[in-house]
């Protein structure tokens, strides 16, 4: 079920009505759980079985880890959780990719091998709920978390519909304690939740889908040779905005929907296009994934406490896997690798020049923000292109090596992208040290009403196309 669909409006209204009509907390949680399964089943009902299986396995594994006295037994149950969860992920998401890569290798070695793609449907949001449940068993294994005493609470943690299919990836320690006592949003919390949902939908439906997607789709969907430098830059900038508004829009909707039900889930974005440096970028972009990778992968590998060379390897490995998490394609791996290189260079520069402060003066800050934004934009070419040939052609055009490529964008699309991207970057710079809550608090009431009405009206006149959120595919 998409947030930007009529069925979601009805579904959410019914859930809220039932949730607040029933007075028993256990029943309220049951309503949320059943609603969450319906929400998921609305895509493809059989895949709910996967969710159930994953939930039961992790519930049992965590209990067994807690009860086991022997380290080896604890390890065994952790491995059960890892194998089941990562096994599902590997089969459904990476099965075809692995086969294709393997046959490609054989062909490179001179053996002529053909492969027929397996007919596998990717369960929506599998990467998100796999990482979420894994964090639970790993935390229990590490002794950082006691297993949940209530299966209902745990199942709701795995399945909570606002963030089930596209994050944020919530940690058990942040969510399960909220299930222990009744939750009820007061009028202000409910209203702010609705405002957040509106803001998220506006970002997705109006800004991402109407203003930016046409240029990005036209440029990255073009397969008849190189494009003109301007068109390639505009398409890349369009995707830079589209991916942000699409994904941050989903997270904002999820946070708003949870708030309406009295739950709090963490922020996933903090004005990332105002980042100063790449470490800073990853503290602001898809925070729940980057912190997951940091805590369960990078730190497990030794983090930055194992010498410069190993730190660089750890960083690169983490970012490669982060890239692969986003999609079963070598272009995503390359995107991750590029960010790995950025981070390694940044770390190296900081250790070579420890006394240089690049944020002490305004011109320096502006320079660092611009440089960071520039390299992040460049990296999106890998993320959005289907092939490395497309990546290469894009870079040749962007850096003026090919100047006479095709001009395919209507002028209106260029205007739309330039206006929205300028506004996006400026708003991120302006809000860099701020939070939207504090900003809205200071706004005059008529302005809040005007902006809210404007967003809803824009959503209505857009009429929607029920386009899926980009991150559903991950």
């Amino acid at each position: 079920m998409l947030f930007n669909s009529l069925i979601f409006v009805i579904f959410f209204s019914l859930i809220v009505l039932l949730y607040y009509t029933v007075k028993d907390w256990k029943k309220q949680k049951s309503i949320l759980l059943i609603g969450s399964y319906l929400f998921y089943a609305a895509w493809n009902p059989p895949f709910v079985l996967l969710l159930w299986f994953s939930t039961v396995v992790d519930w049992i594994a965590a209990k067994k880890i807690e009860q086991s006295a022997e380290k080896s037994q604890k390890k065994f149950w952790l491995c059960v959780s890892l194998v089941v969860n990562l096994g599902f992920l590997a089969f459904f998401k990476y099965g075809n990719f692995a086969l294709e890569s393997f046959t490609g290798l054989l062909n490179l070695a001179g053996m002529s091998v053909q492969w027929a793609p397996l007919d596998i449907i990717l369960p929506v949001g599998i990467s998100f709920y796999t990482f979420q449940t894994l964090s639970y068993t790993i935390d229990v294994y590490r002794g950082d978390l006691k297993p949940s005493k209530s299966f209902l609470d745990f199942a709701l943690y795995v399945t909570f519909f606002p963030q089930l299919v596209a994050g944020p990836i919530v940690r058990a320690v942040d969510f399960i304690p909220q299930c222990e006592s009744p939750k009820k949003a007061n009028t202000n919390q409910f209203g702010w939740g609705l405002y957040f949902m509106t803001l998220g939908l506006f970002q997705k439906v109006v800004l991402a889908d109407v203003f930016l997607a046409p240029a990005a789709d036209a440029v990255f969907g073009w397969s008849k040779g190189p494009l003109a430098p301007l068109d390639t830059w505009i398409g890349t900038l369009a995707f830079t905005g589209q991916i942000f508004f699409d994904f941050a829009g989903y997270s904002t909707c999820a946070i708003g929907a949870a708030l309406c039900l009295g739950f709090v889930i963490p922020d996933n974005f903090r004005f990332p296009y105002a980042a100063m440096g790449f470490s800073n970028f990853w503290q602001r972009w898809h925070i729940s994934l980057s912190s997951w990778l940091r805590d369960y992968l990078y730190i497990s590998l030794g983090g930055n406490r194992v010498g410069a060379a190993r730190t660089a390897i750890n960083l690169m490995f983490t970012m490669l896997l982060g890239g692969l998490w986003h999609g079963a394609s070598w272009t995503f791996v390359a995107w991750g690798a590029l960010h790995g290189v950025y981070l390694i260079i940044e770390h190296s520069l900081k250790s070579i020049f420890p006394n240089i402060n690049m944020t002490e003066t305004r011109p320096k800050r502006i320079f660092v923000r611009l440089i960071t934004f520039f390299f992040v934009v460049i990296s999106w070419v890998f993320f959005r292109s289907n092939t490395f040939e497309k990546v290469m052609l894009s870079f040749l055009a962007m850096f003026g090596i090919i100047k006479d490529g095709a001009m395919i964008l209507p002028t209106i699309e260029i205007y739309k992208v330039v206006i929205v991207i300028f506004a996006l970057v400026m708003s991120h710079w302006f809000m860099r040290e701020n939070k939207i809550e504090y900003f809205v608090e200071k706004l005059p009431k008529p302005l809040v009403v005007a902006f809210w009405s404007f967003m809803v009206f824009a959503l209505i006149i857009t009429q929607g196309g029920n386009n899926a959120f980009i991150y559903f595919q991950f």
Partner: protein
Amino acid sequence: MRSSISSSNSIERVIPSQPWGKLALSSLLITLLLTFGWEAYWRSQGYKPTLNDNKDLWAINRGKVDKNPKRTVIIGSSRILFGFDLDVWENKYNETPLQLATVGTNPSLYLDHLANESQFSGTLILGITPPLFFVPEGMPVDLPTGNIKHFKNFSPAQKISHSLGMLLDKNLAFIEQEDIPLQKMLENLPIQNRQGAQIGPKIPPYFMSLDERREGNFYLRKGFESQLLNRIQQGWIPLFTPPPPPPIFTPEQFQKIFADHMNKTLEKAKSNIQKIQSRGGKVILVRYPSTEKVRELENKFAPRQAFWDRIANETGADKSFHFEDHPTLSNFTCPEWSHLSSEDATRFTEELIKLL
């Protein structure tokens, strides 16, 4: 709490101190006023509520083929969508055909889909707009490909959303897909494109009313008839004029490539028609009327002998009808040169049935 097991340093969420209940109600009121105003404005411009021809409606109707593979199915582009009166057929044969034709599309993709991805064994009425039948890429191909993909992945949530959406479509005039959505209004802004930009001609708006069976009727908003006719007519001229061959090919090379493409398309159509026939099905080809400038352009760039005659003779269809061959089918005037009016659609269907 160790920060390493929380994705965030603080799970607290600040609620801005504003009277959110009052703000929500005020915003709702203003939005309602704006929406009513918007609806009133578009109604004053002659728009009226009608269903939108979207992927959901196509998928719902396509699904009916599998329930009864012996039903009559119509595929093609806008000419047969606007020009086939389902009621006339129903009165004669006591069966409503499934209307799967889609505006501006290459119907050979639907033919391929029905032949190979269904057990269809009924009568297939295939509307032929000769140039479209051989178009290799772009909207004529994207749209049916998208519809077929949507049908295969049609989720329960999309089915329910579609039912709810139809309620809005039937009651609100501004829920319209040709002119009024925000993205269309932006696209229609009079902004000149760059010189040398490879941007295809704009597809003229398809003004139609549509019902749940996907019966489309061409209509022009009252008071705006001549203005709209002119807009649509002017849209056809660049659209029916093929672009020059890509500069990387000589005219001879391009002619050879296109001839090969035509041969392959015809062979594939023949094989697909044979598959349907082998299951007991029948395929009937119909060439709908076009008039004036559009007919001139078709005669120039898609002459009958090289296009229609080959389709009719080489695909092995059971029957084929070109409007020019039958006096009862040729006595029509298309108001915007390319489609029949709804009154003429009824008459044309009656005459076509007499010939079957």
